[in-house]
């Protein structure tokens, strides 16, 4: 990990803060003065990973920009649960775009600010995986290609959740959704489809691309802060478990994010100008089964007719990530 490790014997940088640390050494989330960009009363499900991820990202960005921040939000869960008329949970300037044009609107806001000479005000675009990976993908690629001065954040919960849990281009193989049921010989979502937008973003050779999860707050905050030190197009892909869509306990949101990283299924890394610069190493490696079992969307792999063959294919995906990104700590490889 690239961020500053604090050598505190008790909890190091694993927890949000710790009374033994100076306030400046704690995460943004541990400070009483955090901006709570997404405030209470929003209608996200209990234990929503996306609500958590959005607050983590925007509070860190607010701090990095001294509060000079505008957010543009594509349609999706995050928009729906935060702004039912006449209420808003946003405590920063916030614009809602269409489902497909969030990146273009964000690019436009950045252009307008530049025209006004207000380049001190920074722009964040945000969307779920549907708005990023599928529907907004064309405008996103355009924003990257023009190198517009926007940090675009994808909160990836691996599906279209508020419309009733449909498959997206970020849904993992074997997962069941409303339109990838556990029926037939290849239950759930098929293997061999979908895409990695972080890798596609890197192919645009934009200044900064990073992935993160809601389980590693310090790492996430560090990446947001770092992204804000660049001008031009930047992309942050945050893994946010969805208790509803995944059929998981609401208390397991952070745990599942942690397991996604510790199994190797979700590689956590940073890249600058198209090249990977840092990867977060696995700390306590576990088999993919530990990650899959608590989720109902994978229950069909473990039921009356278990599918060890499918689990093995998922394990192979994790192993490929481990090899490809070098996720095991030195000496374990």
């Amino acid at each position: 990990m690239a961020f500053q490790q604090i050598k505190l014997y008790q909890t190091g940088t694993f927890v949000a803060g710790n009374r033994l640390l100076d306030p400046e050494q704690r995460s943004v989330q541990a400070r009483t003065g955090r901006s709570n960009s997404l405030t209470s009363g929003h209608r996200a499900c209990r234990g929503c990973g996306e609500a958590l991820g959005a607050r983590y990202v925007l509070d860190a960005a607010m701090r990095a920009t001294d509060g000079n921040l505008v957010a543009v939000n594509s349609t999706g869960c995050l928009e729906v649960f935060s702004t039912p008329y006449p209420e808003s949970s946003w405590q920063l300037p916030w614009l809602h775009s269409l489902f497909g044009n969030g990146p273009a609107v964000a690019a436009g806001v950045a252009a307008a600010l530049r025209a006004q000479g207000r380049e001190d005000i920074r722009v964040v675009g945000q969307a779920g995986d549907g708005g990023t990976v599928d529907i907004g993908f064309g405008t996103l690629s355009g924003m990257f290609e023009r190198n517009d001065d926007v940090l675009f954040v994808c909160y990836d919960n691996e599906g279209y959740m508020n419309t009733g849990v449909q498959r997206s281009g970020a849904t993992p193989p074997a997962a069941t959704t409303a339109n990838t049921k556990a029926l037939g010989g290849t239950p759930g979502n098929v293997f061999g489809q979908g895409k990695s937008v972080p890798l596609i973003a890197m192919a645009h050779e934009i200044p900064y691309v990073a992935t993160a999860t809601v389980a590693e707050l310090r790492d996430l905050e560090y990446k947001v802060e770092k992204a804000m030190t660049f001008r031009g197009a930047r992309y942050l892909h945050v893994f946010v478990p969805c208790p509803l869509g995944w059929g998981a306990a609401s208390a397991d949101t952070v745990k599942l994010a942690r397991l996604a990283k510790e199994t190797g299924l979700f590689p956590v890394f940073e890249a600058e100008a198209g090249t990977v610069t840092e990867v977060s190493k696995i700390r306590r490696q576990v088999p993919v089964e530990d990650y899959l079992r608590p989720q109902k969307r994978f229950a069909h792999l473990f039921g009356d007719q278990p599918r060890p063959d499918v689990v093995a294919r998922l394990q192979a995906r994790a192993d490929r990530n481990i090899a490809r990104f070098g996720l095991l700590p030195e000496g374990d490889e």
Partner: protein
Amino acid sequence: MDKPFAITLDVGTSRANKTGSWRTERAVYTNRMPPCNDACPAGENVQAWLYEAEEGGAGYERAWRKIMADNPFPAIMGRVCYHPCETACNRAQLDEAVGINSVERFVGDEAIRQGWTVSVEVPPTGKRVLVIGAGPSGLSAAYHLALRGHTVTIKEAGPMAGGMMRFGIPRYRLSRDVLDAEVQRILDLGVTLELDTKVGDLEAVRQDYDAVFLAVGAQLGRRAYIPAGEAAHVLDAVSMLRDLESGEKPLLGRRVAVYGGGNTAMDAARTAKRLGASEAIVVYRRTKDRMPAHESELREAEDEGVLFKWLSTIKQVDGGRLTVERMELDDTGFPRATGEVEELDADSLVLALGQDTDLSLLDGVPGLVVEDGVVAVGSDMMTGCPGVFAGGDMVPHERSVTVAVGHGKRAARHIDAWLSGAAPEPVARPALATFDTLNTWYYSDAPRAHRPVLDRARRESTFDEVVLGHDESTALMEARRCMSCGNCFGCDNCYGVCPDNAVIKLDDPGGKYLIDLDYCKGCGLCVAECPSGAIQMFPERI
């Protein structure tokens, strides 16, 4: 219609939407019982004092005061306690138990260095309590009774206070400077200590006091019948150690055999080595793993070159020679004689076969019950005779300094209640903070620091303390290995992980948190991600 450009509707904050109404379970900060606290015979709040010590600096004194609330001997504990707290410590399941005992020693030594003291904060009650015996149990009771405002007199048979801490445990394990300092602190509370005052008849002195605490220990070395020749030199371990402490060097010869497998046997053998024996051999009738001696004492004895003869009983002693019979363990683990004998050279034989209590002072005390040579007491430490309490080695329980201290404390609480006629304040015993209630992901990988020991040469010839203390930075790191089982330690995780901002962090340095029930949806994330298991979900009444 004076809205900003492009704004046509009034907006309100979503805080108007009290999502707490969705909740079926609520998160509540709780305190579970850390296993270390649960295991400490003196009832220390280990987790709580480690929490203070973790801060370093001014935290050490607060830690010390928390220990002193239960146990007046932190520096002694940090040397002689068998630390069952560490055996119970949850961290043992992660890497290695927290070195609680070494931190306790550091804090206790720091108190002596800095001269920290305690004082009586309550007005005198006018009640007079007699304590018989100035061992750890009597001293502990005297301390707690004095803090409660009672007038305490200790009558002690010996020439100095400390009991077996002075006349049993050798100096190489407990420095007398430390013992003196911690005993003096108790006397400074106004406790009257009458030395060389053996109580021969409790009934004769009892009426002068409102209550009595008996803590005469077990002073008589048990003798076994072993046929001995004229020239045989046989002595018992407790007398030998007592004589040594009183300045009489026992004559042991070059080759010393010690009979027994307990801690006293270890100390007798190690002492013999220090007094110049070229060979000290412990003879024990069972196997090594069945020895009652504590594992660390066995190891230290082995390190010092003490030899062991397992599965052996002594049949006969003659000048310079022992006849030893080999034993075998039967299916139940009981040693059985085999008839095979051999001879062993030994100039003297030290018996370390346990101790008995001299109960002659209790003759004629009405209602008092003696069973198996010890005095029966209830859970309130009261004997069958109202107003007469007892604790330590003279009551049926495991015998250790820490148990004795715990008895003294418990007795003081009940004596206090008995004197005032009120029920003692109840002691809360919440559910245990078991390992599975923790989220250990969050703890740093932190290997345990072990205390340095004196080099071998000085262990062979001197009575200098063998186990040394940690320096400040090591003690601090060791304290910080504590996972704070079952109790909040202010890591801010709950405040961080709530997706609904329903955890309120109070802006005080103590770092306390509240659940905002207006917005807590009851997801349980704070519970799951609390490293120490200090939050629990409880069902709402719907």
